[in-house]
């Protein structure tokens, strides 16, 4: 992957982006158990596949979601959070 499409600024070189990790649902910290919280904090779906990830376009300060395959490095689509 050398180019990522920012939903605001269009296709931009990958150097302009920072990786923010997999987009995950946070459990309710008031009601979840310690084990569920540890699982959320530390554990990851490490096997290769298409994942929703946070990416950050640094020059414009835009956080976005990219659906990317972590073995082929191909991006299926990008969009702003909530637009899914």
């Amino acid at each position, binding site marked *: 992957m050398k180019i990522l499409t920012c939903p605001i600024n269009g296709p931009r070189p990958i150097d302009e982006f920072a*990786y923010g990790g997999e987009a995950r649902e946070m459990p309710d910290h008031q009601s979840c158990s310690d084990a569920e919280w540890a*699982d959320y904090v530390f*554990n990851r779906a*490490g096997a290769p596949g298409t994942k929703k990830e946070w990416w950050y376009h640094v020059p414009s300060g835009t956080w976005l979601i990219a659906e990317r395959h972590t*073995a082929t490095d191909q991006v299926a689509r990008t969009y702003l959070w909530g637009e899914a």
Partner: protein
Amino acid sequence: MPYRLLRFALSKKHPEPAFFRQPEKLRPSYDAVIIGGGGHGLAAAYYLAKDHGITNVAVLERGYLGGGNTGRNTTIIRSNYLTPEGVAFYDASVKIWENLSQELDLNLFYSNRGHFTLAHTESAMSTMRWRAEVNKQMGVKSEVVGPDDIKHACPEIDLSCAGHAPILGALYHAPGSVARHDGVAWGYGRAASNMGVEIFQNTEVTGLDIQNGRIVGVQTSRGNIKTGKVLSAVAGFTPRITQMAGIRTPIVIHPLQACVTEPMKPWLDTILVSGSLHVYVSQSSRGELVMGASLDPYELHSTRSTLDFVEGLTSHILDMFPFLSGIKVVRQWAGMADMTPDFAPIMGKTPVEGFYLDAGWGTWGFKATPISGKTMAATLANDRPHDLINAFRLERFNEFELTGEKGAAAVGH
């Protein structure tokens, strides 16, 4: 040229025995199956046979022997870690390394060079002092040295780093060494094979048979095996194996790249590491500079190389050694590093009975090859984690009791 080499030219058949037996077929069952024919897996097979008399063992390798991260690292061996648990573990490894060529009857080109971790900032200096004190407490030779000592050991270095990042001092670790990494896999493989261990290359694990929370077998591309003990020592492939076992771990895969230059006359005797410039460099016995940098910045299950990496790395190397500007990079490659949040490995038992993990070796696994083999063999044989690896258990994440090694295991933080 020694005359005995002539027989290789004159003989129609290869005049030396093969390094290890290559059986045609898997047996229907084994006492233990080791997934991964890299240094760690083969060392575990060797110590299972040697220390515990368990020889009915199969080692399954998806590609070829030592073709994963064992053959892709920058071969640095050291024990100057940050936590007492880490220092004790890696120091035990260095002690095995020192006599390993004799033990395996194979020249591993183990070469004691001394290891400088350069500090360019006051905060880096304070980490160096911290590491030196922990190391001394544990009986490991590490000390903080000044710029003059660095210049004495390596007169070619530009101590100002082109004015960008003047070197204030370093952590000097006398036991720091390099070794020939593929030789380690071949040496352990041959020794294990001689004691009865069976090694299968081009054999991919496609599934694990688990009944009532116990491992009972392994499915492979060559057929199924029954076994009660399975060790996964597969580095960058760990998440695929743990997914088959239904185990969740914090491991995420990032590529780690490295490269070598064309060979030069020997000029760099020591190993140099700079956390601020994100580089480590040593000169191999062939004269090439072996260079590495920090991880690629995002998750990727691939061993592709990038131009970004080699551009960034060489610009930092030139800050340290401007005279290298005419030297060519001749090869670059990547490995898949299985990263953990605390930069310590994950070793020992898992929630599945009889399934053991030797993983989370990220960017720091090669130096641990002998001791991880020895401790994992003991863990398999006794079904109880070896004392040296207790701090590396998978359960530590559930218990919020991490083993923070980031300050000593990584460059680029």
